[in-house]
């Protein structure tokens, strides 16, 4: 039976990976995710997990090991953050193009320069277009649940998946997590069934050079060109939205926590304004909403869990009912605005209705800057003063309209 444990998100991710019976683990240390491979290596060394643990010399190699192990049929796992994720960039594209169902927790951390070890989401959000699925978790329970669901989804649609959660805020903070039993997880996630078996008698050339035009094989059958392979990846992402919903609902039936919807809605029924967030900002916004509601404000939270594939239609149709969306993010697309705000505006335009909500973008919490419920209440108030044409920096310098430290 399941049991409740008081654990960090790193522990939750490692325990979930063990319950998923991962077969190949390759990882490299970087704060704040290092605990995940540490815990897993102990499981392997103590014989509690039958896996090959490859202690690679870099994140580039960690992802490479996962790709090649996955290509020959193994369930492969790694974890990273920040510069480690950036260092993998080439291999992230390769993994998605190779269609390997690798699962990788990301303990979100800001990128240098200058150095920070603390949390924001610039690392994973700037890998948006690598072809990976991206899930964002608001608490440690979701980290545990999403690692298990991610394998199930990834192995069905053959797209790798990142399970993202805030470094330190979740990675190093203990909270109660209902840990499923091995029997439950085995039933939910049977051993991997690869789409082909590698064998000496039927040799194949995996991921070779592909031309820009369709080419016939030796039997005269026309085979995909490069763009055809790209289109297949895009189609797989489109079909993944349905698989994510069905896996989320069967997870709910089995474990009692439903993830059918790609977002979590809190106090939205009569809301006029909602915070739109991802990760632990969702939990933080819920606290702020409780306070604001006591003062009679009609406000709610929409916490996005699935960022890629982007659930544009569902999200747009749901968000249309509100008057104002306050998009609060720990990332910035330099030269434009916060990335989720752009996505939401695009979705609202595609699925537009006669009444369109106003969309305001706030950047908060870069490099671990604390975001308390009071900050979100401040943002709520500020949202009626600012213009939607640029991201507002929730930062002393912008709030006081002066440079405080230079």
């Amino acid at each position, binding site marked *: 039976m399941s049991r409740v444990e008081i654990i960090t998100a790193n522990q939750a991710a490692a325990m979930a990976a063990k319950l998923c019976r991962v*077969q*190949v683990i*390759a990882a490299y240390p970087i704060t704040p995710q290092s605990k995940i491979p540490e815990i897993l290596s102990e499981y392997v060394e103590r014989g509690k997990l*039958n*896996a*090959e643990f*490859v*202690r*690679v*010399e*870099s994140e*580039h*190699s*960690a992802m*490479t*090991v*996962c*790709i*090649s*192990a*996955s*290509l*020959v*049929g*193994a369930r*492969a796992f790694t974890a990273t953050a920040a510069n480690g994720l950036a260092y993998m960039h*080439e*291999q992230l594209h*390769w993994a998605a193009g190779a269609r390997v169902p690798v699962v990788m927790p990301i303990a979100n951390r800001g990128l240098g320069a200058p150095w920070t070890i603390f949390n924001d989401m610039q690392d994973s959000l700037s890998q948006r277009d690598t072809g990976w699925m991206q899930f964002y978790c608001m608490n440690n329970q979701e980290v545990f649940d999403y690692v298990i669901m991610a394998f199930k989804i990834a192995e069905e649609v053959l797209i790798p998946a990142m399970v993202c959660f805030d470094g330190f805020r979740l990675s190093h903070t203990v909270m109660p997590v209902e840990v499923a039993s091995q029997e439950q997880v085995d039933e939910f996630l049977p051993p991997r069934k690869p789409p082909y078996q*590698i*064998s*000496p*008698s039927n*040799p*194949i*050339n*995996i*991921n*070779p*050079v*592909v*031309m820009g035009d369709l*080419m*016939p*094989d*030796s039997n005269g059958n026309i*085979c995909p060109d490069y763009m055809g392979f790209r289109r297949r990846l895009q189609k797989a992402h489109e079909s993944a939205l349905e698989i994510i919903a069905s896996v989320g609902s069967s997870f709910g039936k089995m474990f009692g926590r439903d993830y059918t919807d790609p977002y979590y809605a809190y106090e939205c029924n009569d809301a006029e304004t909602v915070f739109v967030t991802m990760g632990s900002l969702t939990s933080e916004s819920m606290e702020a909403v409780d306070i604001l509601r006591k003062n009679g404000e009609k406000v709610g939270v929409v916490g996005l869990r699935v960022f890629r594939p982007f659930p544009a239609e569902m999200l747009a149709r749901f968000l249309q009912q509100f008057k104002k969306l306050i998009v609060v993010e720990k990332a910035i697309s330099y030269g434009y605005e916060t990335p989720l705000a752009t996505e939401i505006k695009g979705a609202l335009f595609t699925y537009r209705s006669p009444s369109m909500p106003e969309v305001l973008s706030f950047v908060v919490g870069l490099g671990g800057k604390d975001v308390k419920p009071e900050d979100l209440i401040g943002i709520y108030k500020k949202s009626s003063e600012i213009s939607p044409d640029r991201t507002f920096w929730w930062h002393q310098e912008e709030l006081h309209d002066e440079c405080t430290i230079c």
Partner: protein
Amino acid sequence: MSAPFVEIPEQEFVLPGTRTCAGCGLALAYRYILKALGQDTIVTLPACCLTILHGIYPKTPIAINAVNNTFASTAASAAGLAAGLKVTGKDNFTVLAMAGDGGTFDMGIQALSGAAERQTNFIYVCYDNEAYMNTGVQRSSATPQGALTTTTPVRPKEQPKKDFLTIMEAHNPSYLATCCSSYPRDIYEKFKKAKEKDKTRFLHVAVPCPPGWGFPASQTVKVGRLAVETALVVLFEIDEGTFRLTGKSLTMARSGRKKPVVEYLKKQDRFKKMTEEQIESLQQEVDKRWEYYLNRANM
């Protein structure tokens, strides 16, 4: 080693239809490497001339399993194959990683050093055509001193070739050997031996490249032989720590006959700007290194 007669199997794993240039030393060597390693080999390779040899989707002239990966990742990819095959119960495969000099001496060195230090169970082959050929003959750290390349087009490369064999020896591979595409029997025997071992094995294969080096396609075997006959390339193996000269290099050591390097250099356009003094100083370097090898072989 050096049995007077070696039975080399008829079965081919490099079938007609490779996309290499005419007279490619790599294609010659690869044929014998795969004959020695056999059907149960899985090769992983980065971007390089070998990728092109493997053909263009959906056709391939290569009759073993192949896994392509990025330029820096060859040895890590092999580590992933080894781990994945082991944990899924398919440990009958021989894992081969094969990359060019650029993908080994330069960009692949980190992953290779890591995999070798972990004593990953695989065979790593660096085929060395002494430049980035696939991208158009640019200088690599394996390019010899005095060679013209497209990135040393006016002033030939000033620095000597990186001593990569010493770097790899320092990783204590279970087997380390050098080959040259002009000596297929030596290749066959060394890869046979490598296949029987476990842990990390490293083989360096010198492969002349007609367009990159500037000689006619008909001269590949001749140029490769001259490389060995002048002792610019020395054929040897280090088997569990024991050094031994092999094949032509062993015969040369016994007979004491070694050709001057100029015979090798003058066959190739890439060396056409070398001055007599530079050739003389190269000759001295080669002589010194040859003495070193003779000493190591107790000869």
